[in-house]
């Protein structure tokens, strides 16, 4: 019996190998034919997404994938002049794999116009953006927030805040609202996002005369023990902890601070969004937590509730976070921009790229989405939307 199972698996693997051997560049995907049939007369624009859907960072990649998928399903059901043909490739959060993923997307699109959506994380995004810049593909990332992503590349745009932008905004917010007399910072010095925000925050805090009493780091988000860092902040008398980190390590920090009876004000960046939706998370730990996030899953407007419902169907019950919402907005930005372009049917990716750049930087193009209204883009590729600071009260966000 076992041998048969083995043999079957083996056979399957070998067939896979054979197929991939012959598949080469000639395999055609049935998807485009279907979507062309869906709305007759509509022009199909291909959107290729890249992000980690396996490995350590898979939760962020799947969020941007599902968020975008919800938007694509809605858009294609609208029956508008444009339909989107969306596919998503795995990059495991690594630059070289991301470049391979990007190239297989080029193969998938062939000569049809293709827009690149991604990548989710910063380091791969910088590598892919250099490639799309050279090849002339328009690229919009939901969440890669380093300025390096868009620097010197006219074709790369962001849906999220940049890291330095967030750091500066946080410092100003603390100053303006008189929060915290002594500030401690804990960040991940092995992560571009976290270091980017922390560096800008520390520089701005110095300018503004904020009293930063402790700066602590940890090397990766797989770290589990933060007691030493918390003790250092506690001993320095910090009454506000700035945590520009993702929600998974942050949830541990909150739990460990509680265990050592240390209760400063916790203040985080947009990476903190998603903590309340972690399965099994004790929401009382996050009571009073303040964070800057553009998205609130418990908002009651109809667009958000529809999005949350469709997203939960797709994800098997997981609630969307700002990664997902930024992904959703990316799709609408691409869709609405494409609707405004004349003669899109005859364009190749290069013409489409130039047309989209002209539109995004033209000044008159605005998008209303889940993460902001009347969002526009700067020449640099950076987004301009208002940062919102929320506070967790009774397990939900409240505007602070």
């Amino acid at each position: 019996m076992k041998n048969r199972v083995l043999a079957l698996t083996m056979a399957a693997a070998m067939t896979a190998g054979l197929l991939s051997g012959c598949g080469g560049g000639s395999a055609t995907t049935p998807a485009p034919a279907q979507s062309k049939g869906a709305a007759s007369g509509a022009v199909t624009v291909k959107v290729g997404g890249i992000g980690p859907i396996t490995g350590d960072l898979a939760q962020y990649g799947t969020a941007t994938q599902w968020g975008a998928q919800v938007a694509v399903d809605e858009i294609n059901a609208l029956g508008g002049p444009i339909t989107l043909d969306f596919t998503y490739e795995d990059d495991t959060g690594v630059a070289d794999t991301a470049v391979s993923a990007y190239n297989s997307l080029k193969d998938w699109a062939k000569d049809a116009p293709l827009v690149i959506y991604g990548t989710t994380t910063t380091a791969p995004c910088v590598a892919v953006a250099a490639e799309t810049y050279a090849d002339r593909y328009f690229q919009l990332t939901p969440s890669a927030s380093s300025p390096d992503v868009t620097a010197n590349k006219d074709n790369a745009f962001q849906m999220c805040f940049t890291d330095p932008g967030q750091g500066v905004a946080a410092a100003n917010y603390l100053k303006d609202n008189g929060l915290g007399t002594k500030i401690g910072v804990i960040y991940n010095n092995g992560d571009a996002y976290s270091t980017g925000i922390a560096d800008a925050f520390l520089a701005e805090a110095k300018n503004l005369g904020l009293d930063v009493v402790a700066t602590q780091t940890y090397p990766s988000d797989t770290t589990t023990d933060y007691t030493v860092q918390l003790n250092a902040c506690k001993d320095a008398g910090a009454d506000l902890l700035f945590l520009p980190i993702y929600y998974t390590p942050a949830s541990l920090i909150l739990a460990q601070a509680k265990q050592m009876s240390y209760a400063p004000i916790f203040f985080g960046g947009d990476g903190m969004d998603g903590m309340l939706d972690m399965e099994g998370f004790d929401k009382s730990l996050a009571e009073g937590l303040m964070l800057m996030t553009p998205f609130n899953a418990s908002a009651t407007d109809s667009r958000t509730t529809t999005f949350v419902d469709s997203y939960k169907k797709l994800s098997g019950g997981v609630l969307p976070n700002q990664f997902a919402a930024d992904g959703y907005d990316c799709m609408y930005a691409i869709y609405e921009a494409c609707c405004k372009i004349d003669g899109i049917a005859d364009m190749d990716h290069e013409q489409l790229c130039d047309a989209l750049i002209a539109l995004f930087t033209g000044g008159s193009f605005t998008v209303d989405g889940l993460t902001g209204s009347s969002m526009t883009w700067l020449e640099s590729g950076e987004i301009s939307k208002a940062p919102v600071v929320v506070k967790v009260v009774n397990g939900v966000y409240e505007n602070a």
Partner: protein
Amino acid sequence: MSFLNNVITGVSLGSIYAIIALGYTMVYGIAKMLNFAHGDVIMVGAFMCFFAMGSFGLPPLVGVLLAVVVCTVLGMVIERLAYKPLRQAPSLAVLITAIGVSYLLQNGAQILWGAATKTFTPIISPTNAAGEPNALQLFGGQLSISYVALLSIVVCLVVMVSLTLFTGRTKLGKAMRACSEDKGAAQLMGINVDSTISMTFAIGSALAAVAGVLMCSAYPILSPTTGSLPGIRAFTAAVFGGIGSIPGAFLGGILLGIIETFAKAYISTDLSDAVVFAVLIIVLLVKPAGLLGKYVPEKV
């Protein structure tokens, strides 16, 4: 006082490393293979307990038992399917297979249970009903040791003593040691080598399940890759103490935890990993078989 606090933090962290290292060293000592999938068995154990307690609302003890049963079976199945056919193969082939099994468990878990990080419900809640920390308070609350840390140290000691007694005193334990010394000779003496090794994996995996539950109780997050980093750390701890040595794994784990904490507290949080590994290298250069390992000179 902050020094003592750091010692406590280090011991708590070290006790988690130690309990994983005990399973590692057990399998290594008998089967002479680096089971890189050990960390992922830990993850499976933690998930079992998570579902038992979270989704079915079972009491913690049942959750732990379920985790132990599932991991024991899983360990034996892995051994039977992936490692047993390679008994005669070079040890590197087994190492690569173990890595394959590790990828398989990680990706399988992701497909089955999703990539999103989950918050584990600790078997001892970190705070009691009144919201005070569930911890042993010393010096009027200036020092506190959480009950989870105390529990893991106790479990570590119990496991260490019983494993030592088991391998030293019982028939099966002696058979295991015989297999570890010389498989061929053991077979000639009428020991069933296959079933003995299979038993070793069963014990090692059961320990992994316990380690998984304790680790996730101390650091309550859980995702398909939760096991991989502690797995490597525990491997380091096992080598540190002298791989194959049961008391060595305990000592190695605790010391590793303390060194890591001290490196963070007194040297630099930026370079704590580098410091930990540098200490490890220096220890191994002075004691090439680890702290408690036996140095066996080669004979001609």
